[in-house]
């Protein structure tokens, strides 16, 4: 059987890539995709825990995470459309009317 640590490593790497994308990319849609990456990293670790702890509850949480991710994506894209209507940009850092 594959050691649980391997899955954890994989999960951590994907999470890091997600965070990196989130912090580096200009395009807000890619930022959203990076968040999805992070969530997938979490899911990987949860499913592997579920398997290795002989417990289904991790999978339940994954199920909920996927559902919520869909909801967040929907509303997120709604707000992106609204932002685009206002600014004609998908570069989120250009929305900085408020600071200080």
């Amino acid at each position: 059987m594959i050691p649980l640590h391997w899955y954890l490593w994989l999960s951590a790497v994907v999470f890091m890539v997600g965070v990196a994308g989130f912090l580096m990319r200009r395009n807000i849609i890619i930022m959203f995709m990076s968040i999805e990456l992070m969530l997938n990293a979490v899911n990987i670790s949860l499913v592997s825990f579920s398997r290795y702890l002989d417990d289904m509850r991790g999978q339940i949480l994954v199920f909920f995470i996927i559902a919520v991710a869909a909801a967040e994506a929907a509303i997120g894209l709604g707000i992106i459309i609204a932002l685009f209507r206002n600014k004609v940009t998908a570069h989120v850092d250009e929305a900085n009317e408020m600071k200080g």
Partner: protein
Amino acid sequence: MTLNDLAPLIPLMVIAVSSVIIMLGIAFYRSRAFSGLLTLAGIAVAFITLFGVQGTRQVTSLLILDDYALFYIGLILAASFVVALLSSDYLEGRRENIEEFYILLLLSTLGSSVLAASTHFVSFFIGLEILSVSLYALIAYTRNELNIEAGVKYLVLAAASSAFLLFGIALLYGETGTMEFSRMSSGISAQGINKGMLLTGFALVLTGVGFKLAVAPFHMWTPDVYEGAPAPVTAFVATVSKGGVFALLLRYFIQVDMHAYPSLFGAVAFIAVASMFAGNLLALLQKNIKRILAYSSIAHLGYLLVAFLAGGVMRVTAVTFYLVAYFITTLGAFGVVTMLSGKERDADAVEDYQGLFRHRPWLALIFSAMLFSLAGIPLTAGFIGKFYIVAAGAGSALWLLVIMLVINSAIGLYYYLRIIVVLYAQPGHSEVSAVSSLPLTGSLVLVLLTVLLLWLGVYPEPLIEMIHRMTMRF
């Protein structure tokens, strides 16, 4: 899992059902008054049904309806009632179709209430998401440039912080084999406590929660979102969303016995001190009232964490009382901002308030009372709250934190007084103070909040008794 289990959930179900009714109602008959009244009725009914819940009821392993949860749900419901009252006049003319606002308001209240009753990571996560997802829409609701910007900022950052939180939850789950708070500590003791991965899990959960609570160093979104959101929504973000999360945090860390982990304690202490300083220093010369209140809320959450860190019986009482005082004060302060806001923009510049006392002595007095309470001047609820926190901190010998708190209160005094001075100065030239007439409901709400504020400042004993009784279990 029987019908009997369902009974304690009636308050939550009332909220959910009334939002569905409003949604269906909108399909047939669009009316602001109708939706607004339904919302108020729904909240009121939910509040009343709270009293029907007898004893401590654990509903599956996910939710618990004990006195503590009921108290916080009551507080949350009361706050959203106030927000609903404040927003009805505010939204008029700011966008078409304002009825959906109420659905979102009700649902985010539901999310926050679920948080207060959660004893499980799954309900925690789902409650948090209901709350956040509806907040995204609420913040951007009136869709002007600032709204959208605030909405995008909150959305992007909240989603990312949820991912951090989930990673923490996953690690804790892996280490302890459970997602129930109450079983977690036994899972931990099976593991031996100083496991690095466990602590990493705690830290990541703290990050996610810290974002929601807007404590330093996860606070940077706060001023922008507070400024950009419509004023009543800002009040909502500042109170309801934080109240639910804080109730959960308190329950969680008491159940896993945070004091067993000195390093976790250190991390929270760091967050508390950082929040106090960041909040107060950032507010010092700020010229925008909403931002000042945002920074001040960061500092206040820092104060709250001091009480949170204190052990002993007084912790829960101190935290809860302070939260109640904070709710009243924050709602009152943002209520004043809401009332004064014109259709073009919110009344958020300090100059808008110059000489307010001459035009609207009442509003100026109410606002001063709120600011006094925020500053912790005696005879206001804020003073009693702060006093309890100091006493709780001193009782647990957290001298350093208490000293930091006192220093920060002194810094805070400066910018609160700065606003008060402006209120009583000679009037300046601002179009905002020329708002023709104040809506009646809002005025009544503000008067009520002020009375409550002073009442709690002079005669806090009944509430303290009540909190003490309700939170005895901890």
